[in-house]
């Protein structure tokens, strides 16, 4: 049987998962630098990577501070979304009445364009508590995947296992904690991975719309840099945001792997 030759050996090491996209990124950056210089593209339209780096280095302190602000608010919003989604899903699993009553409203929250609602939340919560506004907005976007997936997961317990639990006289609490929640865990972790990214998007969007005031996150930096035509700085802030998003995604993926790899089918290495 012929081996799938060079493609197979390329993926032989774990490093290839990082090395291949990294190599592509470097190639794109090099091409970008060259083409922008070669065609004399104006810096306010598309700055070369070298200018972006210079803007980053030159504004290091303020960009890092903004990164921290965005990151910490995102973290809070994520935690609230995970906790809220999980709690609501558990409540739904215990009462079909509550689920039927509240689920459509949860969907409404999900599909409401957040940009439209931000000014309203600002007025209600107050301009002196921008952080809370950001968390609320990000929560609105991020909690629904957790709610929807965990609800599904809680309902997905093996029916024979449910019978077995009943046979041995398990209480509702025991069925919830020993059967339904472990069953829901893979669903929850998958949703968290998506939710983390959504929380970040929510925070940045809200920062942009909430305007100045106490806003000092990366979202606001991007608007500010755009207003001042500091395009290279804008790109630098964008790059930082992307890195933050990737870091959150990887952290949550790692959490998923760490929790599931010993027993879940999704973590089984493919044979051959």
């Amino acid at each position, binding site marked *: 049987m012929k081996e799938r030759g060079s493609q197979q050996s390329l993926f032989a090491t774990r490093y290839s998962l990082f090395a291949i996209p990294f190599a592509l990124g470097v190639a794109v950056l090099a091409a970008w630098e060259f083409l922008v210089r070669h065609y004399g593209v104006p810096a306010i339209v598309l700055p070369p990577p070298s200018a972006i780096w210079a803007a980053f280095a030159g504004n290091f302190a303020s960009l890092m501070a903004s990164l921290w602000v965005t990151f910490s608010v995102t973290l809070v919003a994520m935690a609230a979304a995970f906790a809220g989604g999980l709690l609501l899903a558990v409540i739904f699993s215990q009462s079909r009445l509550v689920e039927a009553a509240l689920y459509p409203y949860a969907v409404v929250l999900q599909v409401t364009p957040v940009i439209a609602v931000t000014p309203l939340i600002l007025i209600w919560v107050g301009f002196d508590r921008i952080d809370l506004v950001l968390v609320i907005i990000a929560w609105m976007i991020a909690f629904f995947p957790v709610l929807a997936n965990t609800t599904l997961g809680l309902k997905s317990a*093996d029916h*024979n*296992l449910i*019978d*077995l*639990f*009943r*046979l*041995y*006289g*398990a209480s509702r609490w*025991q069925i919830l904690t*020993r*059967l339904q929640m*472990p069953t829901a*865990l893979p669903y929850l972790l998958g949703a968290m991975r998506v939710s983390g990214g959504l929380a970040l998007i929510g925070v940045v969007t809200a920062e942009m719309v909430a305007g100045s005031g106490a806003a000092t996150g990366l979202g606001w930096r991007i608007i500010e840099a755009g207003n001042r035509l500091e395009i290279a700085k804008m790109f630098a802030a964008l790059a930082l945001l992307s890195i933050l998003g990737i870091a959150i995604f990887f952290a949550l993926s790692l959490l998923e792997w760490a929790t599931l790899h*010993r*027993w*879940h*089918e999704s973590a*089984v290495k493919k044979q051959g």
Partner: protein
Amino acid sequence: MAALLTLEGISKRFDGGVEALAAVDLRIGAGEFVSLVGPSGCGKSTALRVIAGLLAPSRGAVTWPGGKPAIGFVFQEPTLMPWADAVGNARLPLDLKGVARGEAEARAMRALARVGLDGFERAFPRALSGGMKMRVSIARAIAAEPKLLLMDEPFAALDELTRQALNDDLLKLVREDGLTVIFVTHSVYESAYLSDRVVAMTPRPGRVAADLALSPPRVRDQGYRLTPEFAGAAGRVSAALKKANSE
């Protein structure tokens, strides 16, 4: 022999109109190994679930003259919790009853050793073969030291050799613990090998068509399958089934 349980006039009609059982009368004595055989859909699994208390009969009653004993149930699927290792799975009935952790752990380990899974206590279900998963399922059923074992075609999904090995392991456990077993199976040969009694059921709605007393040797092994006595027993079961099917 004292009756452990009796079924009197058990019928079961499901929502949707399916009548799974029609007036089943059965008396099971303590220590008996009773097989329920019959065509697919004849209500054997339903009867087992009614006995276990998982389903309420539409009519009739299950009575336990000596009180309801501890029951172990084994499904056709191993039905293990994938997130727990073998001990974690075997401990389940004990954990649910609130047995202290140390004792539950010890009893589960002992049950696993009795089904031949020494050394696999920390393995997760996805690392176990079908036969091994079924052994964990059996260990779980016996961990709480039941007096009655209900088994719903437990070996149907396994290959022949594994099935025969598990047949013998089951007989050993039953002998050691003095268990009463109600064993649902499709297989005429399996019922003839394992049972003191075979109850043949009619197609849906299921009713008892025949109740055969077999007398297999008390201690038997695979060699018994080659004897004329076994062939005779299997023949009787087969004939009873054919007759039941044509009713």
